[in-house]
Structure formats: C-alpha cells, structure tokens
C-alpha cells in the first residue's frame, strides 16, 4: 500500500559527487543559521536566501535549491560570521558545478564561458582590442630587464569604457611616481575569476594554468592589480597551481608609496568622500585602511563614513559572477548602498573595484535622489596627484 511520505530518498552518487566537489568543506556546518540571518538577500528579497538549507543539502547529498545557487555574490558576510569557519561562498561555487555537469539552470552563462575560451575575456570582446583603451599612452610591453612591476589591467578595465578610465588613471599615477612598469597588452591573460565564481572549477583551473604560463614566459615576478577580483584569485588560488609571482592590489601599492612619501597631492578643494568597502578587498583581504589612508592623504578630504562600513560593508551585488546574471528591480543591493552613501553627507562615493563602480553608478541613476559621482580611489588620486 503506497503511502505519501515526506522522506527524501538520498542519492549516494550525488552525495559522493558533492563531497568531491566541495572537498568536504560543508562538513563542519552545524546548521546554526547565522549565515542565512546575515546574508544581504534577507533584506533584498522576498523569502531571502536560505544558505543554511543549501549547506544542509550539501551535507546529506540532496539538492533541491538549484536556482537559488546563483544568488550568491561572494560577499563573504556569511563566511565572516560563520562560527565553524565554513568557506560558504566556496561551497556554493563548487555546487554550481553540478549545474554545469547536468546542464540545467544555466541561463545565458555558457556564452560567458565560450567567450573566455575563444576571446580570453568573459565580455565577448575581441582579443585584439585588449589594449585599445591605452591608445596614445605609449605603454611599454612588460620587459623583465627594464620593468620592476607589471601593471595587470584585467578584462573589465580593458574593455568596459567606464572602467577604462580607471586604467588610464592608474597609468597616470604610476608614471607620476616614476614607476618602471609595463603591461602585457593583447597577451594579457584573463585571470579567470568570473569562471571560478560561476562555478566551473575545471575550466578556471585551465585558464589559470594558461595565465601562469604566460606570466612565466614574460618572467613576471611582481604585479600591481587593478581589480580586487583578479587580485583575489592571484593571491588565493594561483599559488596552489604553481604561481610564484607576487601580486598587490593598487590601493595597497599606493598606500605604501604614500607612507614612503613618494606621492604628493595638490588640492585646494574641500572634498567630502564616503568610501564603500568592496567585499573582496575588505572582508576578503582585510584591506580597510589602505584605501582610507590614501584618501585622507589628499588635503581637503573629509571622510564621511556611511552605514555598514568596513567588516559590515554591504555588497554592491556584482560579485559571484552576478554581473552576468539578471537581478530584478527592488532586489539590488546597490540601490540600498547608494541611499546609504547619500545619507553619509558626502558629495563623492569612492570605492576601489571596477565592478562596484558599475553597480553603484547604475543604482545611482535609478534610485531617486542626489547624483553623487562614483569614483575609484585611483581616479581620485589621479586627479590630485602632483609631479614628484
């Protein structure tokens, strides 16, 4: 006699698959739910995002919540609060590979991967145009015998017109301080971060190995990186794959130069600036002070903290591969963030990540209220840097 039952039949094969994909990282979770309570989706979305359920499912080898896997923007709020140290966003990223394997719920994401494969960037832009942003700048190609540092631009700053301004500002600043640096130009490999966050671990590894080969061929030992996203994979993932180069985010780099007295600023204006901590730079790498030090080194700058800063910074919504996924209106973290920026009393919203800039500028346009300019710290430095 068949009876209705709420019991789930567990699939041993799936359980094993998940264990392998996550390297057992979900095991320590004891279902306290802090992750779910603190996840920004709880504010942004009806029903929030039950991270806890996904972790539980991962532990027992069940997977119902396939669609919500895409919600995670890798903001690391959950990881920062998890009492068991579970690398939650990594677990979610690994679980995304189940979708790739089964070819379900992939939206338009295969085209992003194909773009990375054929074009060396996830943005469907021509590889031969990777250095077009630098037209007229006469940038030297990195030569280990002449250059101390590689300036690593990344795909977003190479191709996104708004982000290209950051790249140009970086060049201006590095030249102003007399740094001997080069770029890789059209040979610059994509770091693969987008692919990693979108959950295709094996393809990420392939891209990373290719990138490492290119860096080795150019004999790169040290690089300054514009995007925290690229910086993160170079620091956290590339060493396990054999990379030996050192990478520094440009804000850390500039902070050191300022401390060493190698940058002078010229400014007569009063600037009230509020600084938004990018998730990766902040919670990911603890770099809260460097960007603030840089801003405060400019005469006339007054920092106006906004709500939820530093460890509590609210994600802009652009991480975790979400730049390639659609977020319905009213559910965008950035919308809330710009309100917080407006309430800080500042007249400029500063940040240090090209994806944050894209998301925050978007929200600034959409949400009624004062239009604060959104600027990268590098752009602000570029504006006020004097010749040394």
């Amino acid at each position, binding site marked *: 006699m068949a009876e209705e039952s709420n019991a789930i039949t567990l699939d041993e094969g799936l359980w094993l698959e998940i264990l392998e994909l996550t390297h057992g990282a979900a095991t320590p979770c004891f279902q306290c739910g802090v992750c779910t309570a603190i996840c920004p989706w709880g504010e942004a979305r009806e029903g929030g995002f039950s991270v806890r359920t996904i972790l539980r499912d991962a532990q027992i080898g069940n997977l119902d919540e396939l669609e919500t896997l895409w919600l995670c923007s890798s903001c690391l709020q959950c990881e920062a609060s998890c009492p068991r140290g579970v690398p939650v966003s990594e677990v979610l990223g690994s679980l995304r590979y189940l979708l*790739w*394997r089964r*070819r379900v719920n*992939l939206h*338009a994401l*295969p*085209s992003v*991967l*194909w773009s990375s*494969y*054929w074009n060396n960037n996830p943005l469907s832009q*021509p*590889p*031969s*145009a990777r250095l077009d942003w630098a037209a007229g700048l006469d940038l030297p190609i990195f030569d280990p015998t002449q250059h101390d540092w590689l300036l690593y631009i990344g795909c977003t700053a190479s191709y996104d017109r708004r982000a290209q301004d950051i790249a140009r500002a970086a060049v201006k600043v590095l030249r102003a301080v007399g740094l001997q640096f080069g770029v890789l130009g059209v040979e610059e490999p994509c770091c693969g971060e987008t692919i990693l966050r979108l959950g*295709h671990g*094996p*393809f990420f590894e392939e891209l990373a190995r290719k990138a490492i080969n290119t860096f080795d061929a150019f004999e790169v030992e040290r690089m300054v990186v514009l995007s925290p996203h690229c910086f993160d994979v170079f620091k956290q993932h590339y060493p396990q794959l054999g990379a030996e180069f050192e990478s520094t985010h440009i804000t850390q780099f500039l902070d050191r130069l300022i401390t060493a007295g190698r940058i002078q600023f010229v400014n007569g204006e009063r600037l009230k600036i509020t600084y938004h901590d990018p998730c990766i730079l902040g919670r990911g790498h603890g770099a809260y002070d460097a960007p603030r030090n840089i801003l405060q080194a400019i005469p006339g700058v007054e920092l106006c903290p906004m709500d939820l800063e530093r460890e509590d910074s609210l994600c802009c919504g652009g991480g975790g591969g979400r730049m390639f996924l659609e977020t319905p209106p009213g559910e965008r973290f950035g919308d809330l963030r710009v309100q917080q920026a407006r309430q800080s009393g500042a007249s400029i919203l500063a940040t240090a990540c090209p994806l944050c800039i894209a998301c925050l500028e978007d929200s600034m346009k959409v949400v009624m209220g004062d239009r604060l300019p959104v600027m990268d710290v590098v752009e602000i430095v570029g504006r006020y840097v004097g010749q040394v």
Partner: protein
Amino acid sequence: MSKRHIVVCMKVTPKPEEILVDPATMLIQREQARSEINPPDMNAIELALQLKDQSDARLSIISMGPPFFEPYLRVGLAMGADALYLLSDRTFAGADTLATTYVLAKAVDRLGDVDVVICGEESSDGATGQVPPGLAEWLGWPLVSLAIKAELNRSGTQIIVTRDSHGRAEVKSSLPAVLSVKSAANQPRFMDFDLKEEAFEQVPLIVWGPDDLDTEPDQVGLKGSPTVVTGLREAEVRERRRQRLEGPIDDVVHQLIEILDPYLRTP
C-alpha cells in the same frame, strides 16, 4: 532501430576583425589572425547534440581544412560528438563552394550510413550560405534550412524540423536529409570537462585525403572551382563614425532618413 548517424559539418574561421590582406599578393593573411569555430557551426553542433540526446544516435564531425583545424574540431568532441574526420590535402585548398561541397559530400558518402547532415547557416568568412544547399544537391537529399529545432519521428524515417524564415513553420522531411541551423538559434552547450581529456588526448583524428574519398582531381580545390578571384582589398575598418547631426529637429530627422534609407529596404 539501429543507432542513427548524425554528421555535422564544421569550419574553422579566422576572427573577422583580425583579417588582413597582403596587398602585394592579394591573398588573405590567415596566419596572423586568431581562429575560432565558425560561430553558426556551434549552433549546428548544439542542434545535433540535442538530436543525439533525444534518440539513440552517434555524432561525427567532418571538416575540410588544413591540419591546424584539429584543436578546434576537438572542441566539438568535448561538447559530445563521437568521431572526428578531417578532410585534408594540399589539392583541396583554394576551393570555392562547389569544390568544397563536393569533398564534404564524398565524405558523407564514404561514411555510408548517415541519416542527417547538419550545417551552420553560413560561415563568418564567406557568409554565402551555399554549403547546405550545395551539399544537399551533391547528395541528392532534401534540404531544410534555418532549423531551430529538430526531432526524429519514432521510427527514425523522418525528421520534423521547426524552422524560422520570416515566421515559424514545422516541416517534415524524409531521411536522409540535410539541415542548416539558423545562426544564434540556440545556446551552444559548453564543453563537458568530464569528456574533455578523452576528446583532446584519446579520440583519434581520422584524416581523409583524395584516395580515401575517391575524389576526381579536377573537381577539388582550385581546379574544381568555377569561380576565380580577380581582385581583393581590405574594406575600411568599421569604427563607429561618431558623427553628430546638428540643427533644428525637423532637419535632423530628414538627414537621418536619408542616411537610413539604404538600410531600410525590407526583403
């Protein structure tokens, strides 16, 4: 019902924005340009894989080209194809569509048990769209072009194709048949990394030349091409003009209509 045999024709094309012409020799300089699988052929492989998913079928890729095509064609294997045939010989080079479709048809003929051949709508270099009908003609098979979906009937004797030519239609065709797939009609699945190693390291590349295909020397390559190129030059690079149309709005819209007129003619 025995296993169906589906064949996909693939071409490797240079990235259009990287093509240069040597003004001295009037030859296309392909070597400097990065290559990719002809994007419409990706849609073709995807349709073929969808057919393979729904029926008991195996999928072979055929391609006429030089040896450097190999790593690109293996991408098709990593997507789920089973076998790979490169139709390659010096004498095949310089072929126009007549000579190309001849060689492709000879390969299908040699395979012997093919139920359906699937091609991309056109290629990003020549963009002539002639391969599908030309191939169908050599084989003496019906053609259904601009397919967006296809399904074999239960007995595998017919194929039902949804096509999109200024409106959707469902067309039934006897088998064997040739299909062309409408560009961007589907989303090509990404490579299956569980298959990738085998696809790139283990599946043999079968190369067929004139002897294997039993081709007539005067029907392949340059010799077999009725059309000849008598002139070649680079077109101006298409940067956006960034021109502003100024003046009172009524003048501006008239100027605009003049500019748009050649583009506005409907088929």
